[in-house]
């Protein structure tokens, strides 16, 4: 894994180039990883993703909590040689990174134990030892994988829980640094420690003590417990601790921070020097029937952060979810149709929403990289914060709890009885 910094600016963060494999494509940072579930981009087949979202190579974000069952099959698949983990999930030509936890879903907060790390899968809790984890990594053969960590902390965590997460992570990593030679994949050193500067420093110190070349980058965890919890972080608490961490890290390694951060938090994290994020925010919006409509280009039109697909008011709105959007959904379908798909609980609904939301979020990242290059990230941040001079916009995603009632059905058959 090679990472080269192109520029660093006080106000706009860093621009970099990440090459995962010598022969593979180069990715520019700030980089957006494609989050997956069970190896697939949520709701989208490889065909739909490549035909309607992007043809460019991506870095796929795989999670062990949704792929643990595939270990045996992948051991067999990989022993053939030539084909890799991305090929197995139907997305050849894309690179990948293996995380433990699914950033799309809130990770349950329990089951931490001295020598094992809980892994919450679809079938319940599994217990990972460092030995078992390294076996699984060597079967899966991801391009990049994260070190085993206890990241069960957030702003509310007690000091004792935070300290435990650091100590246990250190213990797991001790084993992993020792045995990492058995796998060819690139390792990311986990940095944990909640919102505690002392604990974060300790976690960083343990990584930095390792001999040069032990790992290729950092993964920041323990600021939130995934899912919607990442969308509502208090940046006045988050940013100082991230700044504290970044200061202690060398420049030439990428910093990855998974989670469904709001667009505003994301921009602030980029300014602090975080390099790699993922599409879990687009997933969370789609899952809760919201189309992303925030603006990241200066214009005179009024913008709102989301279009709520569950809103009865769009039942007969035959305009695209977002005017001027060039995605398949906005080119070919209407708000009214998306609303109908929501009401009828049809699978095409989240598919069309995900196509739009990914398209929108990936376009946002293009603008971010442009702004970082031109050192205009603060202006972009202001635009996203205020959306054309309006008062501050709320980017948090509320879980959709609406139940579709019979009362919302049409009266198409209500001819009076004769």
């Amino acid at each position, binding site marked *: 894994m090679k990472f080269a910094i192109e520029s660093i600016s006080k106000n706009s963060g860093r621009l970099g180039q990440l090459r995962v494999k010598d022969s593979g494509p180069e990715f520019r940072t700030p980089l957006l990883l494609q989050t997956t*579930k*069970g*190896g*697939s*981009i*949520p*709701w*989208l*087949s*490889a*065909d*739909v993703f490549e*035909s*309607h979202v992007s043809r460019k190579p991506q870095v796929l974000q795989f999670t062990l909590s949704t792929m643990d*069952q*595939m270990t*045996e*099959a992948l051991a*067999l*698949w990989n022993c053939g040689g030539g084909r890799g983990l991305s090929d*197995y*999930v*139907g*997305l050849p030509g894309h690179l990948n990174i293996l995380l433990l936890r699914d950033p799309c879903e809130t990770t349950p907060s329990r089951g931490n134990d001295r020598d094992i790390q809980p892994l919450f899968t*679809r079938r319940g809790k599994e217990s990972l030892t460092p030995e078992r984890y390294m076996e699984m990594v060597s079967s899966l053969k991801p391009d990049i994988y994260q070190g085993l960590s206890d990241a069960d902390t957030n702003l509310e965590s007690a000091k004792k829980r935070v300290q435990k997460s650091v100590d246990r992570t250190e213990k797991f990593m001790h084993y992993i640094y020792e045995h990492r030679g058995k796998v060819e994949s690139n390792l990311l050193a986990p940095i944990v420690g909640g919102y505690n500067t002392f604990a974060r420093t300790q976690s960083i110190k343990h990584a930095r003590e390792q001999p040069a070349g032990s790992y290729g980058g950092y993964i920041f965890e323990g600021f939130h417990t995934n899912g919607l919890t990442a969308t509502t972080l208090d940046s006045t608490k988050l940013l100082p601790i991230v700044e504290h961490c970044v200061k202690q890290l060398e420049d030439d390694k990428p910093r990855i921070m998974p989670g469904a951060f709001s667009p505003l938090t994301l921009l602030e994290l980029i300014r602090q020097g975080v390099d790699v994020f993922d599409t879990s925010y687009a997933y969370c919006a789609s899952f809760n029937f919201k189309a992303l409509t925030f603006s990241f280009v200066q214009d005179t039109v009024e913008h709102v952060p989301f279009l709520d697909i569950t809103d009865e008011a769009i*039942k*007969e709105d*035959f305009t695209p979810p977002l005017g001027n959007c060039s995605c*398949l959904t906005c080119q*070919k*379908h*209407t708000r*009214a*149709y998306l609303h*109908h*798909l929501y*009401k*009828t*609980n*049809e*699978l*095409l609904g*989240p*598919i*069309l929403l995900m196509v739009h939301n990914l398209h929108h979020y990936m376009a946002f990242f293009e603008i971010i990289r442009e702004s970082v290059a031109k050192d205009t990230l603060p202006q972009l941040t202001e635009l996203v914060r205020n959306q054309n001079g309006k008062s501050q916009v709320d980017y948090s995603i509320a879980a959709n709890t609406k139940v*579709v009632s*019979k*009362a*919302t*059905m*049409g*009266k*198409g*058959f*209500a*001819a*009076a*009885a*004769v």
Partner: protein
Amino acid sequence: IPPLTYKVVAECSVSKARAGLMTLRHSEVNTPVFMPVGTQGTLKGILPDQLIELNCQILLGNTYHLGLRPGIETLKKAGGLHKFMGWPRAILTDSGGFQMVSLLQLAEIDEHGVNFRSPFDNSQCMLTPEHSIQIQNAIGADIMMQLDDVVKTTTIGPRVEEAMERTIRWVDRCIEAHARDDDQSLFPIVQGGLDVPLRQRCVSALMERQVRGFAVGGLSGGESKHDFWRMVDVCTGYLPRDKPRYLMGVGFAADLVVCVALGIDMFDCVFPTRTARFGCALVGSGQLNLKQPKYKLDMEPIDKDCECSTCKRYTRSYLHHIATNESVSCSLLSIHNVAYQLRLMRSMREAIQRDEFPQFVRDFMASHFQSDPIPAWIREALAAVNIQLPADPEKNDEQEQKPKTEKRQETEDLDKEQVATS
């Protein structure tokens, strides 16, 4: 130009099979054709573009469901179902009557129409032939169905005759009410239960009406396969050669092949997309239940000769892991299953055009049933149209062998499920 023209392109010199070209306002349709069912204005997790890629030319929509959601007013404002769902090709709609009778426990039929309690507010409502046509005119499908008097296929006695007679009276009311005859073609439905003379009478009465095609109804609902094929054979025997014939609710592979041999041109069935939801993939020899442990390490595609986007990219092993867990698996298997049905129809059309259809049928049956005995009803049905199958290695006396595709189609259960989830 009429909204539907049909011409026979080729006829099998042995059986009653024919290949045709049906030209509709929104699409040309090569027959025999399988129409995937997009009940609520979408086909289970498949984009319209993907359906076009599969060369799907016509979809079926359900009037009952569309009348409830999005509702007729919304569909009118949208400019019809084609525009509402972004589907540029042809659509066929049913009358809504069958769905009502099978879904709503309290539905009752009298001379006026179908009486039912509205699922909207539980008020007493009625679907008349006129009303069904008004709704279908708003939906704007290329082909629409008359409201018919539906009785259970296993019904016997005077009720069957009454239903047949009423269906004929209702077709006249439907024709009278039809306001868009320049754009949409109304098909009458042949009824008459399992009674040969009733079926004959029904066909000849319907043939006196000005219609552009015919549907065969009241089958595939629990009758014996022996009765099923005989009724299809009787109907196609009397229907005119120059108009398309649609057999409602039939879609298992072996049934499709037999009924094409008997002279049917159009089919629909929820089975391919429904079975996909449960992790099943259609293949020549029946279906693979990918949830079974034996597929866990199987690195082959579902079908290595299939050209669908699923078979190009995905192994059985990967599909085994995501089937019924990740919703994308439903799209992936639906794509394959629809591709399978469409490919089967295309192969039949091509075989008919080469006049090699009887050999196609023999090859199909051999690979579909493999070492299992071919059911007696299939042998009889095919023999009735002069296609002889080779004798089974061992004589098997079993009469009503179930189709290889396991369970019978359970349209009613599926639709109840859909209502329950709504």
